[in-house]
């Protein structure tokens, strides 16, 4: 028994001794030694060829209603800060920022990347290279392009949310803009590197929340078409909405049409949109059949149309479908004009016609520009007419 208990002692000593050198805790970084980057701005630098990187950090000590011990911070100043540096590439700029910070940068919470227009026009590949290699980045991170310089956006206060990154995340979650993630950019590389990224605008506005000072407001506006890794043109908001239809990302949208009867405005809220894309290879061209289905709920009627009349109703529904078709068409035409397969329709071809795709893969951009046709069909069922069945206009008229 003594030998066995001795061996137990050995075992315990052994475990401890093995643990001892391990107490180095190499990767340990206390939570209060980390700086959580919540948003990343990348733009072209002052010097030609340089990149300007700006990171938004949350400042936890200002976000907590501190009681007593915290040293009375709280309402003073914003609960976040933006640090920006310029470097030859993103990695260098990042090292520069890090060397200026007392805490270690943690990428784990980074969900939004904003690219400045200038850099986007120069090409987003160098940025992608950095983002894709760093293991802490989530491929889920949303990517936006901002109109003008990113600096404007950096200045915009987050009015509704605690942090500006939350604002952009909510934009993406609501799906009112095309939400392009890092993953989509990476996938696009395999199909000619064309894609679409929604754009942000930051107009100046007098803000009541900021004591009536003029400040910038973060808003959405259109999208940028990326051709071969470079931003080539902008897409207007309406066209971008069409894009949402194509990408099957539409959650809800309000579409206004002119009444076929008297040209008054009729607005519908479109929900449950679903789009199917089917390619068809014909002799000399490729046709994409795009079929959209959705449900429309009446929002408002500014015309003499009687929504409870089935005949008129059908008329309006057809008009609504046509409007959607027009929107989709507009979006596609825009991309086709510059030969950028932004919606990556090529992959549908690859999935369904693997052999044909192999032949045309290499000059897909030109084929897309010249030999692709679209057959767009939208069918929107109008189901609900809202709380009231008769239009208030009707009474006045009657």
């Amino acid at each position, binding site marked *: 028994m003594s030998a066995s208990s001795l061996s137990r002692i050995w075992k315990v000593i052994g475990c401890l001794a093995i643990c001892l050198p391990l107490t180095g805790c190499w990767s340990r970084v206390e*939570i*209060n030694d980390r700086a959580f980057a919540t948003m990343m701005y990348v733009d072209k630098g002052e010097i030609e060829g340089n990149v300007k990187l700006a990171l938004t950090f*949350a400042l936890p000590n200002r976000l907590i209603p501190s009681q007593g011990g915290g040293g009375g911070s709280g309402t003073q100043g914003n609960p976040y800060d933006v640090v920006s540096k310029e470097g030859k590439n993103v990695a260098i700029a990042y090292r520069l920022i890090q060397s200026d910070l007392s805490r270690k940068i943690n990428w784990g919470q980074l969900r939004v990347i904003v690219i400045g227009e200038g850099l986007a026009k120069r090409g987003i590949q160098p940025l992608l290279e950095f983002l894709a290699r760093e293991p802490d980045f989530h491929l889920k991170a949303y990517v936006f392009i901002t109109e003008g310089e990113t600096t404007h956006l950096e200045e915009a206060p987050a009015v509704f949310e605690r942090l500006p990154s939350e604002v952009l995340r909510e934009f993406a979650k609501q799906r009112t803009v095309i939400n392009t993630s890092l993953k989509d950019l990476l996938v696009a590389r395999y199909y000619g590197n064309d894609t679409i990224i929604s754009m942000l605008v930051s107009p100046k506005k007098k803000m009541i929340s900021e004591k009536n000072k003029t400040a910038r407001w973060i808003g959405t506006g259109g999208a940028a078409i990326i051709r071969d890794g470079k931003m080539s043109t902008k897409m207007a908001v309406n066209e971008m909405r069409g894009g949402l239809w194509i990408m099957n990302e539409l959650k809800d949208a309000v579409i206004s049409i002119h009444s076929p009867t008297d040209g008054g405005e009729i607005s519908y809220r479109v929900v449950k949109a679903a789009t199917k894309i089917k390619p068809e290879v014909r002799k000399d061209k490729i046709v994409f059949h795009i079929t959209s289905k959705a449900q429309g709920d009446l929002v408002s009627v500014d015309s003499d149309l009687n929504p409870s009349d089935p005949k008129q109703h059908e008329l309006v529904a057809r008009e609504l479908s046509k409007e959607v078709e027009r929107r989709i068409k507009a979006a596609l035409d825009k991309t086709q004009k510059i030969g950028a397969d932004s919606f990556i329709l090529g992959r549908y071809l690859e999935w369904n016609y693997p052999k044909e795709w192999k032949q045309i893969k290499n000059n897909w951009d030109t084929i897309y520009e010249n030999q692709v046709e679209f057959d767009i069909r939208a069918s929107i069922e109008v189901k609900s007419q809202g709380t009231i069945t008769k239009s208030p206009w009707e009474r006045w008229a009657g």
Partner: protein
Amino acid sequence: MTIFRWFKTAKSALGNPGLDPIRSVAGQPNANPQQPSDLEEAIDAPISMEQRIGWYREQFDRCSDVVYFSFVAGAGTACSVIFIQGIINEETLHRQIIEAAMTIRSGESSEQFVRQLFEGRRLPVSSMDITASLTEGLRRILLGEVLLIVDGDARMILFPIEKFAMRAVSNAENEVVIRGPRDAFVEDISTNLTLLRRRLKSPALKTETYFFGKHTQTKVLITYIDGICMEGLVDEVKHRLSRIRIDGVLGSSYIQEAVADNPFSPFPQTMYTERPDVVAGALLEGRVAIFVDSTPMQIIAPVTFYMMMQSAEDYYQNYISATWIRWIRYLYLLISLLLPSLYVAVTTYHPEMLPANLLITVAGSRDIVPFPAIVEAFLMEISFEAIREATVRMPKQIGQAISVIGALVIGTAAVQAGIVSGAMVIIVSITGIASFIIPHYELGLALRVLRFPIMIMAGVFGLLGIVTGIILTFLHLVSLRSFGTPYLTPTAPLVLADWKDVAVRAPWWRMKARPHLYQTDHEKREHFGKPKLPEEEGSS
């Protein structure tokens, strides 16, 4: 596998009659496997009473509580009784032995008196024993019996009329239930046995007696239900008991430690209980209960990990709510083991795991704390352990004061002073509550102990360290056995049939078979079918 080999050798040892512990008839104290060494050989009593009393006086030298009383019984026979004051029923002694012996019956000769005395016809007592061995007499006196010496006869009579001071049967204090029976075991073994007998009125309930402790001579009963309990298990229990050599047994845990399979494990390998209904239930499942005198906690063996996660209340409640409560217990078992380490691992290694808003809150609360998370966790956990221990050990009134001070110091003051973070206080409190939810105290203790090494691992390796800790613990549990039954029985090895009382608490009409024990043949229980609805009953 070592355990296996050991088991085999144990079996073969059992087969050897030389090592077989001496069987005794129920209720009848028998020759003890372990006697005080200086009295090893039985000394035959000489005929002369004086000589015998002299021998006893010599043995009980300087024992002021031994009473020697000599009297002349009927027909002029000189008798004397030897007993220890205070541990016998003097009333009985007086009325039924001395008074009855002293009555003079006319025409009774001395020889007649002695013959009738030894035949048990002279005295109105319920039980008596005859011995011719001085040493046996000595031992029995110490057990609280009265020794009657008759002059001129080498035989002596022993009257078991012991009466120890004892507590009345009262409410169970540690295993409280709401609906079930309230009575709990007391320190007196015969009372305890009656509590059990009252529940199991069956001749199949066997109780075998042993004595342990060189100086305490503690009575130990092995109880089991013949026909339900495996023979091999009883033999195994006896074999393990037969190895015990000990000075004194002051509580059932002495026996518990002596019969454990793996003496180096923090986990309890036998269960204790103070509730007679729990013992009865265990016996009905085919287990063995070991009663130890002078302790209200009796031992049940074999046990499994999951048995200790069950409370007696589970069986007195509606089975659906009992199942729910059981799941809550499993959840909190994990929490009590892992929560502080998870907190440490997540905040120092994997902050990206927390959703942004929560992360900011946690980071903000930790911002002013001067210690690393692991140190903070250790500090808090250790002070919490101290408070818990202090409250348990102190008298109730002081205990309350301690808990108030503790709550004040740890809860409010420390946070306000910025020494610990508010989040950590929450974590520690939840952990503390979680560890109270585990019904079996010893299991809770084991988990409390294990929490600290896992915390260190979490501090060194984050989640990987926690996983390592869990794996090592699990490996230990998997290799652990309680009297041959693997400790994690229904899950590893998998016995799906037993999940009825582990994953859920099945209703009684579904508990058709007894739980699977090592080598058991898994016998069927008496059971009834699912109760029918009135309309079903009517139609059939």
